């Protein structure tokens, strides 16, 4: 009792420790709720995109390679007919395909070509070009682990931006479009 009377702050120490713990847990809870653990930052950003040579959906005998795409920026959107979230994203792509200012390449991931064609026929084709990766082997090099995923690749073939999950008008306005504009500024 003597001690406490002499040092009034001493009695608050447990309270302060408790408050610190509570703050710690609250931050943890909020972090967990607002932050999706699936959105893993890609180590490929600002690195050259992997080499690829993939058949076109419409003419499977023709191949599109990374070298073909060099010279101007483009978007790669990983999708599949079996992917539900791609269906959610689809109207957004339809609305924005001509607003991006860069070609939008569909990357059909682990999908049967006839299924992909039927899916695009039914919903509409937002892509300027569709390439197919049935085995998903090239997708490993891109670090794809779920569809939809979107990559922005610049004129020199370097990945500038990646978004995991469906693109939304919000994401496009806040993240993707500034990145595209920045590339255009640098390119011209």
């Amino acid at each position, binding site marked *: 009792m003597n*001690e406490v009377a002499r040092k009034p702050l001493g009695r608050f120490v447990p309270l302060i420790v408790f408050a610190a713990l509570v703050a710690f847990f609250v931050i943890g809870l909020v972090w967990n709720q607002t932050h999706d653990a699936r959105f*893993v930052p890609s180590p490929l950003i600002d690195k050259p995109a992997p080499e690829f040579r993939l058949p076109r959906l419409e003419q499977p005998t023709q191949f599109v390679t990374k070298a073909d795409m060099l010279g101007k920026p483009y978007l790669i959107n990983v999708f599949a007919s079996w992917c539900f979230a791609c269906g959610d994203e689809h109207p957004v792509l339809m609305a924005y395909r001509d607003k991006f200012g860069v070609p939008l390449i569909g990357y059909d991931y682990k999908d049967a070509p006839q299924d992909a064609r039927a899916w695009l026929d039914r919903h509409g084709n937002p892509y300027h070009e569709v390439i197919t990766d049935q085995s*998903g*082997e090239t997708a*490993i090099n891109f670090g794809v*682990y779920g569809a939809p995923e979107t990559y922005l690749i610049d004129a020199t073939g370097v990945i500038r931006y990646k978004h995991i999950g469906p693109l939304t008008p919000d994401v496009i306005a806040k993240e993707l479009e500034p990145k595209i504009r920045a590339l255009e500024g640098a390119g011209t």
Partner: protein
Amino acid sequence: MKRLLAMLLPSPLGRGGAKRTRAQREPEGAGEGSSVVRSCVDFVPSPPTPLAMGEGSKTEPSLSLRGEWKKQLRRIRQVMAVVVIAFALALSAAAFAIDPLPFKDNAQRDRFQHLTSELRCMVCQDESLLASNADFAKQLRRQIFDMMQQGKSDKEIKDWLVARYSTFILYDPPLAPSTIALWFGTPVILLAGGIVVVVLLRRRTRPAGTIAEDPGDDW
């Protein structure tokens, strides 16, 4: 709140309530769980719902309490046996769900299992590449197997994966600026706590007169 109490109370009155709430909650919970599971694994058999253990008490109060008790005990044993068998089945299913890979020898298989158990399935995230039945995990297992056949070391394989999927794919986080708190946070807190305990204990064992002389006393 009433329901919660009913679940907690072991009284016969509470039991009926508890059973009802459990029945109501189960489909929900099972649905949630299975939707998560389905995305990653499609082999887990739904465990048989154990018989409600309190069922015996619903029958007419028997004259021989001992007989009743024995009956309950037998039922509990049956339920436990079912649960144990279900677990065993689930585990063996996990072991056999993995696509057979033609390993050269047991050492290579062990190395493969050890390596894939240290890697995260990026789709499931709470399962290792070894345990997951997701398509993604199957493909990466195949890839890792192929790299092993090419004579790649564990480190080379891990580096290859990290270059594509970031260090998030490693269950064992590397020592990096962003993981310093993770690596040293706990020992530092433990050390601080230990120092506090030692200081307090020392002070307590000292004769009462010396405490007043101690100028650095915050407690």
